[in-house]
């Protein structure tokens, strides 16, 4: 048998194609699911109302528009649900079938999750791009270096999100049902990632949240790419943002792989 890495690379196009086929298997569910990814537009409406009579905490309406449309784009490109998928497969024993294939399940899940991304974004992204250009265009960066760093920043944000969600899913090896933990995680993520409001706005209102956020990966998952997209940053600041993201990526992948290798020893392969 050829080497694992080269075999995995050769298998990727097929895995992505099948991931796409799975995503579009149910048409009605597919359309509803695409519509659910537009939550940042609601946040935008709320904060635009707050800033109607003038800038709020340094953010005027075009800046808020740019920020939340940026959030919509980043959320759509980095969001995934592997924690639920993995948790369900551990609980029901379906994971057994993945373990019988010579492909690390983390690769199989990653390809299945990333295959769905373009479809998830079919509705949200065009809306975001049109609104961003027409309403908040002035607030988007035009710096080529910043724009060049945006793609790696988005990739790193996706990797951190995926790895953390994968590690959360692995908790099912120990506690079977992780719905409550994942919900708690989303609470933390919403607070510390910049999903509810820009982090600098949050920090000036609640300094303790800003301090804690520095020690957590959530900002690197959402706020960091939005900053690269919507703020005018110095080269040092840009590199700091992406450097911190790279650091969190290494930590989160390490945690995910450790959780997997410790958890799979406890797998009970129920059913059958």
């Amino acid at each position, binding site marked *: 048998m050829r080497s694992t890495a080269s075999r995995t690379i050769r298998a990727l196009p097929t895995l992505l194609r099948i991931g796409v086929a799975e995503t579009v*298997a149910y048409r009605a569910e597919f359309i509803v699911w695409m519509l659910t990814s537009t939550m940042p537009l609601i946040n935008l409406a709320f904060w635009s109302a707050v800033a109607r009579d003038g800038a709020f905490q340094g953010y005027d309406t075009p800046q808020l528009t740019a920020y939340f449309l940026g959030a919509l784009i980043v959320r759509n490109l980095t969001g995934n649900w592997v924690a639920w998928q993995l948790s369900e497969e551990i609980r029901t024993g379906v994971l057994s079938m993945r373990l019988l*294939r010579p492909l690390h399940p983390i690769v199989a899940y990653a390809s299945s999750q990333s295959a769905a991304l373009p479809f998830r974004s079919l509705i949200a992204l065009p809306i975001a791009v049109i609104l961003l250009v027409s309403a908040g265009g002035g607030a988007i960066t035009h710096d080529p270096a910043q724009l060049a760093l945006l793609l790696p920043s988005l990739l790193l944000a996706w990797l951190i999100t995926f790895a953390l969600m994968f590690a959360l899913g692995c908790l099912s090896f120990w506690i079977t049902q992780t719905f409550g933990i994942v919900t708690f995680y989303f609470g933390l993520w919403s607070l510390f990632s910049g999903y509810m409001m820009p982090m600098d706005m949050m920090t000036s209102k609640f300094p303790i949240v800003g301090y804690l956020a520095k020690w957590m990966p959530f900002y690197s998952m959402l706020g960091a790419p939005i900053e690269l997209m919507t703020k005018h940053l110095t080269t040092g600041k840009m590199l700091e943002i992406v450097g911190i993201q790279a650091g969190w990526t290494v930590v989160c992948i390490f945690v995910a792989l450790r959780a997997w290798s410790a958890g799979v*020893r406890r797998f009970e392969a129920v*059913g*059958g």
Partner: protein
Amino acid sequence: MIRAKELTKHFKVHRRPPGLAAAIKSLVHRKYDVVKAVDGVSFTIERGERVGFLGPNGAGKTTTLKVLSGLLHPTSGEIEVAGHVPFKREPDLLGKITLVMGQKSQLIWDLPPAETYAMNRAIFDVPQAEFEKTLGELTELLDLSGLVDKPTRQLSLGERMKCELAAALLHRPTTLFLDEPTIGLDVAMQVAIRDFVRNYNQRHEATVLLTSHYMDDVVALCPRIIVIDQGKLIHDGDLRQLIKTMDPDKRVSFTLTAPIDQGELEKLGTILSREGQRISLRVSERELPAVVGHVLGTLKAADIAIEDPPLEDILRVMFGRSKEAAANHKETEAS
């Protein structure tokens, strides 16, 4: 080759009585029992052997298959499959084995089986030409034409099972773990699957370890059987020899052409059933030639069939003895 030495697998199981009070109590204080699903089992299976793995529900058959295929880590003991330690799940091993579970599907539920086949081809890195050749053979042997393009969820149980077998064999494994592969299938389909497994075993010199609640599967496929009960091995050997040892008498069934007295029948053997002219007797091996001669010559029976006792009956006796032995052991320990 498959080798298990003193294999054990224990599970910690949470137990609580029914009811709201017990449910709330279990939030703060949980009781766990250790279940010895597999308890010191040893055996060796050579390449190309077909072995039936039998036992009552909960005996530890499926757990053993899951340990052997690398899904579960054993609690203790040594195991080796095709030169590998299964729970390490090295790619080389995974390319040589397959596990078919009648109650668990590897097919992608929302897509046609053809998509699972394409995925397995990519993951197992099967060259396209070899894949097409193998799939062609499997399509012919399992009569899959017209099935592989329908979504899996719309296939009948029998159709799905045939597609499952094809998915499990596309990479041409040399060790097959088959856990209830014919469950829920009609008789014709069971026979088709049995023929297919035998054919595959002979063509590829594949090792087959089969569990099934249908004894016909085991009798038709497996010259050797391993029997476990309550996690312990209670028999490992030739199937015919086991039957001969446990119950050497034959079952003789025939249809009479003229009425006969009950007394005359009883002289031939123990009457097992009598439905109209159809008779079934239990006859010792020593008396068999004379009884057959009498039935055909004197009674002029329209037909006659001589069979071994059903494997189900043999196993029932074995499991009964095993339970008794376990109860005696517990009593001795208690005293």
